[in-house]
């Protein structure tokens, strides 16, 4: 490419667009669906139920420790499918590029997408690129859609938690959110915190091998809004109280240290490679052991229980604190703000 930046010409649909698609995307994402370059990909589906999802990625900064917007887009989408027990079958990619974006950066992102797709064993079957004038987008925005097939007999949902069920988390909480905040912060921190961005299907599949389908209630990945938000959503959908033990929640020392300094609560920070599982309490050990078979589940832990609501009590998440006190964990409201005094 003569030019080293994206120009409006690349979004015109003409020769420059064709070259962009060929040189940046087909060179890296080639498969029998995408290579055809038709208006729609045609995919055979065996009878059954489809999990179907869409997501948009506007992460800032675009490159961060542990990943970039490309790998995040793939992981996030396949994880949404995995939370329904679905093996990812196909992804689509819609890219909005800001005029002036460096080609080198775009290629880096495309490489990242390619690697993530290979790791997750999912093809990108359709894609689209548009270019907007400088200032109308922040480098690159990505929208995705994903489909996957749900195994027969598996019924999962946030409304399915029963009193007595166990609440399990697959590993350390708050890594992605703190990695992003630290890359954006003007404070000079020395801690190295990496995003946990990773595909979760294998973890989910391993759990489903070891635990009968009717004993698993739900999987949720605590992305935006963090663990606290997902637990509140489950409590509301299932009309229950969730009791969590602060001491049992796995959090890296560095993450809690940084959160203390910034005045943030790790329970509200995003995770991109973790899941919450609610299962019949009789199977909680099997599920934790299954998760621990894989590196990304090495720190899986039982963090709480589902409890029935008292008469006229509203769905709530309560936390037993490290010193034995009790408090409520509410939904995230607004953006985390720094302290002053």
């Amino acid at each position, binding site marked *: 490419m003569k030019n080293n930046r994206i120009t409006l010409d690349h979004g015109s649909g003409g020769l420059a667009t064709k070259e962009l698609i060929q040189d940046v995307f087909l060179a890296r994402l080639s498969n029998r669906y995408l290579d055809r370059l038709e208006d729609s990909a045609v995919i055979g589906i065996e009878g059954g139920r489809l999990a179907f999802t869409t997501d948009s990625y506007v992460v800032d900064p675009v490159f961060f420790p542990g990943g970039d917007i490309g790998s995040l887009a793939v992981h996030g989408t396949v994880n949404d499918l995995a939370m329904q027990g679905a093996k990812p079958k196909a992804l689509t990619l819609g890219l909005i590029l800001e005029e002036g974006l460096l080609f080198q950066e775009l290629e880096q992102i495309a490489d990242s997408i390619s690697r993530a797709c290979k790791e997750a064993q999912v093809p990108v079957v359709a894609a689209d690129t548009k270019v907007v004038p400088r200032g109308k987008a922040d480098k690159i925005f990505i929208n995705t859609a994903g489909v996957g097939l749900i195994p027969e007999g598996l019924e999962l949902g946030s409304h399915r938690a029963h009193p007595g069920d166990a609440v399990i988390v697959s590993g350390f909480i708050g890594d992605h959110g703190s990695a992003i905040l630290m890359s954006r912060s003007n404070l000079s921190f*020395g801690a190295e915190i990496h995003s946990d961005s990773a595909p979760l299907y294998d973890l989910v599949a391993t759990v489903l091998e070891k635990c009968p389908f009717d004993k698993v209630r739900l999987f949720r990945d605590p992305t935006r809004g963090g663990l606290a938000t997902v637990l509140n959503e489950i409590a509301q959908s299932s009309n229950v109280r969730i009791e969590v033990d602060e001491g049992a929640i796995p959090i890296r020392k560095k993450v*809690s*240290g940084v959160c203390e*300094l910034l005045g943030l609560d790790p329970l509200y920070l995003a995770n991109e490679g973790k899941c919450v599982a609610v299962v019949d309490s009789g199977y909680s050990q099997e599920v934790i052991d299954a998760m621990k078979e894989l590196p990304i589940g090495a720190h899986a832990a039982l963090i709480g229980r589902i409890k029935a609501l008292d008469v006229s009590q509203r769905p709530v998440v309560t936390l037993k604190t490290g010193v034995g006190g009790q408090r409520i964990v509410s939904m995230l409201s607004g953006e985390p703000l720094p302290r002053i005094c």
Partner: protein
Amino acid sequence: MKVLEVQGEQDDFLNPPTALVEAQGTTLNARLDIVDRMPEPGDYVIVHAGFAIHTLSSEDAHKSLELFKDLAQHG
């Protein structure tokens, strides 16, 4: 937080002094413009919003800890 390194001098408003401090696996550059006593490596500082507000020696920090433990046990 524990002080690892100190740079600069107080009253140098053009190049305000900082200390590399560490706690719980995190390091931070804390400003020393308003701290009561310039720390040395090995000292501890209390940090508020990125600024050190008080320096204490490692001995003082441990003594303080012992006082709490005593109180909890004996009163």
